[in-house]
């Protein structure tokens, strides 16, 4: 129960922060959607970092390291440190400049102007929304699982001891699961569906009232929380697991205990590792990140995020990866259900090794990482529906007040739809994470060319989007087919392109072919079709001096 009080207190604090940010709301749609371009360097750093670090950063990184070893850091974290900052620098600053100058609030508005095409918006809109929704679902499902996990009672002989809530507190359809209360039910914790609903409600409140300013503040606060608590978790787990006198002695004992294959990358494909470098390009096309870029007060506000982002990733990821590989050692017995679902490894360790007070705070830290991405995604979808669909095609003369009302209405709608989708408990949604990122990465050639290549045409852009989504759909269908054949979602998560090479095969991430297809289609079709007008080119490629 202690954990639950701490989590509730934390959520209450977030609500207060959102309401306070709402008091500073200037009443304009620009303020609601892009905080009137008023966010300075520190808030921009924290909100960009909080938004890019999803549930995957804390919960997933520990689980992946448990499965794959230390190689996941190079594959997912250090590559992101290089590529994310590259995207902020090469794309973010220029897009911010155009956004501020021409009043853009969404990516689609930029592409429509740059390519002189209304149709590109209609093609991009479903693609972007379709890729964000599974990403949202991951957060909603993860939040329910984390809260339920830390509030559950202890299983002993098929019964639940010391539950937070006695059986019968909630309706049976929430408590029992498909196999019973103590098997796959709530096990005396807050039922997942209830926890997800509360988290969605809290995020909805501060996004609804605070808009982008509330979201940026909440993100900054939550990023501080999960970074500090992540380091605290690391030291607590190290001290409990190591069994030595000093912190350093514990670290050494734990390092020695890591099995050989997890200390190295001997089981990891080198070519897969190299091709993973393309996955972080996804940040260049994340619609929610685009919206955060637009909030910057000045181009100078980008300096701190560009510089600090790689080190921030290191501060969060290195402890999580070490915890994950320590858990492979004989110093801790990881039970089969956790072994089967490594995404619950961190909550499991926190619950077993930290006391209830620290456990409550650490859970708040994990929730902070989850919510700091959910809020931006909800807000960006609301903004896109309002600007790119309703205002553009149905209510071109909507007043500021109407636009804010529409955005808020859509945000409520999106939260409801996402929550209802999460009730279907899509088994393979966690495996979808890397597919979402790959889909966004495959659109990277489009944004890069739009900013740096005068020769890009609207037909080249159509071809690029269709090639990206076509290859994505082809590979994803193949992965789903293999998954159905195997009877589990594993092949969706581990899917690679296996290219025969000499006597062996070269494994590549499917994103390699997606990005290549998208780039080739963009260049070939653009070269064969008419360019935008000189007026448009002058608008986006002003002659210096």
């Amino acid at each position, binding site marked *: 129960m202690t954990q639950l009080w701490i989590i509730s207190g934390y959520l209450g604090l977030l609500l207060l922060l959102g309401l306070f940010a709402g008091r500073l709301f200037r009443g304009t749609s620009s303020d609601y959607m892009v905080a009137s371009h008023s966010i300075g360097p520190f808030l921009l750093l924290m909100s960009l970092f909080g938004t890019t670090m999803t549930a995957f950063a804390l919960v997933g990184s520990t689980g992946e390291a448990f499965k794959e070893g*230390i*190689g996941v*850091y*190079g594959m997912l*974290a*250090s*590559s992101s*440190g*290089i590529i994310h*900052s*590259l995207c902020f*620098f*090469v794309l973010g*600053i*220029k897009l911010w*400049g*155009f956004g*501020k*100058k021409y009043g853009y609030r969404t990516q689609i508005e930029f592409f429509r102007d740059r390519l002189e095409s209304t149709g590109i918006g209609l093609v991009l809109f479903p693609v972007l929304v379709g890729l964000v929704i599974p990403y949202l679902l991951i957060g909603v499902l993860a939040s329910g699982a984390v809260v339920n996990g830390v509030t559950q009672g202890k299983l002993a002989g098929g019964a639940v001891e010391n539950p937070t809530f006695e059986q019968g507190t909630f309706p049976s359809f929430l408590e029992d699961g498909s196999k019973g209360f103590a098997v796959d039910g709530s096990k005396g914790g807050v039922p997942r569906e209830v926890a997800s609903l509360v988290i969605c409600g809290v995020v909805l409140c501060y996004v609804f009232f605070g808009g982008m300013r509330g979201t940026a503040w909440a993100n900054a606060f939550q990023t501080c929380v999960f970074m500090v608590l992540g380091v605290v978790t690391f030291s607590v787990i190290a001290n409990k697991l190591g069994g030595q006198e000093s912190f*350093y002695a514990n*670290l*050494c004992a*734990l*390092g*020695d205990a*890591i099995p*050989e294959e997890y*200390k*190295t*990358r*001997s089981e*990891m494909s*080198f070519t897969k*590792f*190299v091709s993973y*470098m393309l996955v972080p390009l996804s940040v260049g096309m994340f619609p929610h990140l685009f919206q955060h870029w637009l909030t910057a007060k*000045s*181009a*100078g506000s980008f*300096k701190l995020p*560009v*510089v*600090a*982002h*790689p*080190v921030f*990733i*290191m501060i969060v990821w*290195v402890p999580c*990866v*070490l915890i994950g*590989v320590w858990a492979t050692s004989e110093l801790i017995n990881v039970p089969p259900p956790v072994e089967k679902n490594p995404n619950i490894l961190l909550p499991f360790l926190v619950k077993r090794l930290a006391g209830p007070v620290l456990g409550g705070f650490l859970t708040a830290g994990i929730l902070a990482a989850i919510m700091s991405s959910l809020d931006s995604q909800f807000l960006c979808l609301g903004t896109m529906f309002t600007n790119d669909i309703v205002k553009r095609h149905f209510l071109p003369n909507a007043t500021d007040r109407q636009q804010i009302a529409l955005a808020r209405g859509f945000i409520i709608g999106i939260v409801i739809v996402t929550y209802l989708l999460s009730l279907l408990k899509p088994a393979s949604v966690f495996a979808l994470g890397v597919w979402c990122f790959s889909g966004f990465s495959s659109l990277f050639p489009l944004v890069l060319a739009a*900013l*740096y*290549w005068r020769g890009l045409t609207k037909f080249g852009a159509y071809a690029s989007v269709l090639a990206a989504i076509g290859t994505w759909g082809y590979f994803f269908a193949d992965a789903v087919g293999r998954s159905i054949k195997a009877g589990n979602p594993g092949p969706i998560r581990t899917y690679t392109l296996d290219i025969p090479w000499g006597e062996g095969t070269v494994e590549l991430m499917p994103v390699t072919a997606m990005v290549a297809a998208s780039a080739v289609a963009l260049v070939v079709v653009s070269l064969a079709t008419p360019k935008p007008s000189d007026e448009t080119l002058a608008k*986006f*490629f*002003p002659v210096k001096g």
Partner: protein
Amino acid sequence: MATVVWALVVLLMVVHQDFWFWENDYLVFGFMPIGLFYHACISIAASVTWFLATKHCWPAADDAGEAASPEGGAA
């Protein structure tokens, strides 16, 4: 200097592919696997490189909302 900074960014991407530590199980400071330590250093090197980029490749006169491009970029 801008060319040097962009060359450093490319170098970072190259040295990121560290096949030379692939099967090395040495523990740096007695607790940190060298493959992890090396990539943590890559993260720090990335921050240093991007710091240099903000010093030497920053778009000029961009604060008024002009859509400038990073110096040395392709625009």
